[in-house]
C-alpha cells in the first residue's frame, strides 16, 4: 500500500491505495464518487472522463498515483451548489441523454471541447471532437445539439462548483 494525496472537487484527500489502483477506481471505490463510470477496458468509451488540472482525462487510463498533488474535477463537482453548470443544463434541455451512463463523461468532455475550441462550435467540429466518447442510446444527434447550445451559454462565464 502507498499513499496518494490529491484534491477532488476542491476537497483534499490522502488515501492509502494498492499501487495498481487506477484513478477511476480511487474515485469510485475509495471516495465513493460513483458519477464517473467505467464502460470499457480499452480507453475507448470515455464514460470515465474527468478533468485533471483542467484537462480532460480518461480516468481508467491513469494510475491514481499519477494524480499525486493534482486537482481533479468530477461530474459531482460541476454544479455550483444547486445551480447546474450550463453544459449540464444544455444536456437536459436538448435531451442529450437517455440511459445516463455515458453522460458524465460526455459532459466533462464537452466542457473540455469548449475550452479548446471556443464557444461557437459547428456540428462537424463537435462530432470530430467526440471521437473519444461512445453513446449507444442517442445516436449523438441531441448530444451534438446540447454541446453547441451549452458552449454558447458558457460564453457568459460558467461557474463550476469548485475551481479545477
Amino acid at each position, binding site marked *: 500500500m502507498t499513499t496518494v494525496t490529491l484534491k477532488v472537487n476542491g476537497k483534499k484527500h490522502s488515501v492509502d491505495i494498492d499501487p495498481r489502483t487506477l484513478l477511476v477506481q480511487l474515485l469510485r471505490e475509495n471516495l465513493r464518487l460513483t458519477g464517473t463510470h467505467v464502460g470499457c*477496458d480499452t480507453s475507448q468509451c470515455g464514460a470515465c472522463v474527468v478533468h485533471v488540472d483542467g484537462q480532460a482525462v480518461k480516468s481508467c487510463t491513469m494510475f491514481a498515483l499519477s494524480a499525486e498533488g493534482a486537482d481533479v474535477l468530477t461530474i459531482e463537482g460541476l454544479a455550483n451548489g444547486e445551480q447546474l453548470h450550463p453544459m449540464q443544463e444544455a444536456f437536459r434541455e436538448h435531451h442529450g441523454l437517455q440511459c445516463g*451512463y*455515458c453522460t458524465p463523461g460526455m459532459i466533462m468532455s464537452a466542457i473540455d471541447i469548449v475550452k479548446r475550441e471556443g464557444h461557437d462550435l459547428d456540428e462537424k467540429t463537435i462530432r470530430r471532437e467526440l*471521437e473519444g466518447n461512445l453513446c*449507444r442510446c*442517442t445516436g449523438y444527434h441531441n448530444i451534438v445539439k446540447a454541446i453547441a447550445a451549452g458552449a454558447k451559454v458558457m460564453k457568459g462565464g460558467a461557474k463550476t462548483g469548485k475551481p479545477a
Partner: protein
Amino acid sequence: MTTTGIGASVRRTEDQRFITGNGHYTDDIRLVGETFAYFLRSPHPHATLKKIDTTKASKMPGVIAIFTGADLAADKVGNLICGWAISSKDGSPMNMGPHPALAQGKVRHVGDQVAVVIAETLNQAKDAAAAINVDYGVLPANADPAKARDPKTAQVHDNAPRNTIYEWSLGDEKAVDAAFKNAKHVTKLDITNNRLVPNAMEPRAAIGDYDKGADSSTLWVTSQNPHVHRLVMAAFLGLAPENKFRVIAPDVGGGFGSKIFIYAEETVCLWAAKKLKRPVRWTSDRSEAFQSDAHGRDHVTHAEIALDDSGKVLALRVKTIANLGAYMSTFSSSVPTYLYATLLSGQYDIPAIYCEVDAVYTNTVPVDAYRGAGRPEACYVIERLMEVAAREMHMSPTELRKKNFIRKFPHQTPVIMAYDIGDHDATLTKAMEMANIKGFGARKQRSSQQGKLRGVGYSTYIEACGIAPSAAVGSLGAGVGLWESAEVRVNPTGSVEVLTGSHSHGQGHETTFAQLVSERLGIPMQQISIVHGDTDKVQFGMGTYGSRSGPVGMTAISKALDKIEAKAKKIAGHLLEASAADIEFKNGKFTVAGTDRSLAFSEVALAAYVGHKFPTAEIEPGLKEGSFYDPTNFTFPSGCHICEVEIDPETGQTKIAHWTAVDDFGVIINPMIVEGQVHGGVAQGIGQALLENCVYDSEGQLLSGSFMDYTMPRADDLPSFSVGTVVTKCPSNPLGIKGCGEAGAIAAPVALINAITDALGHEDIVMPATAQKVWQAVQKTYKQRHAAE
C-alpha cells in the same frame, strides 16, 4: 394539451440525477461485508474439462472460495432455460441442450464460465483465477452457421443431432410453389444478416445478498425485467422461493434486449451469497461482455419473390439458417421464428408466403433478442427484395411499393399477423417530400461531376410490437403471459405513486408515465412518482422490451386510473351529497354536474383516508387501485426511412448525406423522447449496415472482442437526422399508442444498403459495408460500366 400533458415535449424528470452524477447503477451500490466474484472463462471454443485444479489458487491471499460446475450440481442448482417452446415442422420439440451456470464436463464457446473465484478484493479474485490450472481436452469447433448441419461438423450438444435445434416453418408451401410457377418475374437474393454485440454502455452487473435471520435473498441486477428474473430464478433454478426473494433493477444503463435474459453470472452471485453468508458482487469488463452478453441477429438467408408483369407481388419464399450460439438463451427460440417470419409480409398485400427456419448450435456466444429482434431481419429480407425487384423490372422502387401497399385495414397476412391500421402512402409521401427526392437527380449529377457515386435507398417498414396478447403468444409456445401491471396509490396529501411493471433503462418512463397521470388527474408532475424495478414494491410485471411500455405498460396505468376516478367520484358524491353518476371530473376537480359545487382532487384524496364520515358499507377507505392489462393485439408501427449516400470511389468511404425518417407510432406522449428513440434506433441500424460486425474465425475464436476491433458508431460516423411523423391512432388500446423503441433499428439497415447498392449499380455487398468492402464493390461497378461502353 397542457404544458405537461399528452403530446408535450416535457424535459425529463430523471435527468437531474444523471447529469449531476447521482444515478444509482448496480455497480454504484456497496454492501457491508461484500465479496468480489471473478469468472474464469474458457479460452477455447470447444473442449472437455478434464481437470480443474484449484489447489494453488485457493491458498492465495484474500480468496474465500472457488466454485465450479460440480458445486452447483451438488446443490442441485437448475440449468438456465429458454422460455419459448418452438416445435419443428414434423411436430418434434426443440432440442434444448443443458446450460449450467458454470460449465459441467465441457465448455462450448470462448468465454464459457469454467469457475468462479470469490475474494475480498477484485484484484485478489483476478490473481487467483489466473492461478487455476485447467486441463482442457480441446475439441474441433463449429462456428459457421451455414456449415453447422454438415454431418462432419463438431457436435455442440449430444441431444441435438447435426446441431439442429429445430426445423420450423410458417405459411402455405403449396400455394407459394403454385404462385411461383405462374410468375412473370422472380427476384432471388442471398442475404447475410451480420452478428452484432448489443454493447449497452453500462456493462452487466449483479450483487447477491442473503439475510440469514429472515432467510431471504436479494439480487441487484442490470435487468430490463426484474420480476421475470425472480420468477425464473425461483421456479427453474431453485435459488430462493419467490416470497423470500427480492430482485432490484436500479438505474440501468441501456439494455437493447441484452438485459432481458437470465444469465449465469447473477445466478452464481445469488447462490454463492447464500452459501458464503456474505454479499457477492460481479461487474462485467467490456471484454467479458463481448464473450458473455447475448449477441444479436446472425442469419443466413436465401429469399425469392414472385411478381406478375405489372409488378404485383404474388408470393414470397424464404429459407433461413439462424445461429443461436452454444446455448439457448432465455427467449432465443422466438426471435428467428415468431418475431421474424410473421413480419415478412412487410407493408404489402402478398397472397402467399412460406418461410423455413433452421436454428442451429455453434461454438459461439448465445444469440437472443437485440433491438428489433427478428423484425430487422424480416424487414431486411422484404425491403431488399422489393428494391432489387424494382431495379430488375426497370420500375421505380417507390412505384413498385405503392402497387403493393396494403390500404384496407384490418388486413390478415398469410403469416399470422392481423394488421389493424396504418397509412403507408402518407408516410412514404411525407418522407419523399422531406428528403427532397425531386432534387435527387441534380444532386447525383453534382456528385458525379466530383467523381463521387450517389445513391438513394428506401425502407418502408412495418413491425409488430406492444408485445403481446398472452393468449396469442401462449398458443405459439411462450412460457409466460405478456400482459403488464400497474398500481396507482393516491396519498392523503394528494400526491401519487404509480408502481409499474415496466422498467426504464433510458426510455424516460419517469417522465412520460407521469405526463399521462398528470393529464388524467389534473395534478402537477412534481406530485407524481413513478416507481419501478423492485419486486418488493411492484407486485408483478413483465418488464420492458419489444416496444411494449407505451402500448401495454401505460395502458395498464390508464386502466388503474379509470378505477381511481370511479372510486374518487363515489367519495366526492358522498361528500357533495350527490350521486356518483352526477359527478364530473375535469382538470383535477370533481363537480356536481350543472352546479358550482366542487372538490379539488387533493380534498377527495384526503377524505379517502380520513374516513370519519364514510358510509364504509358502501365505500371502503383509501384510494389505491391496480390493473393487469393484457393487450388484444400486437401494435403495428410503420413508416418510411430514406437514406441518401455519397461514396468516394477512391477510398470506399460512404458518407450519409441525408437521413429521413417518417414514422407512424400512433399517439405520441412526448415527441422529444420519441424523436430520441428514433435517433438511437437509426444509429444502431446504421452501425449494423456500415460498421459493426462480430467476427469468429473458422476455429471459433472471437476476433472482435473489444471496442478496439468491434466498430461502435461514433459521433463523426453519423449524420443528423430529419424526423417526422404521421399519426394513425392504434385501435387496440385506449391510448392509441403503438410504440417507438425499435423502429429505427428495424428500418435503417436496409435503407442504407439499398442506397449503397443504388450508388454502386449492383447488388453485390454484404453488411457491414465497410470502406474496404465498398471499395472492392466499386471495382465491380467500374468493370460493369467498362463492359457496357
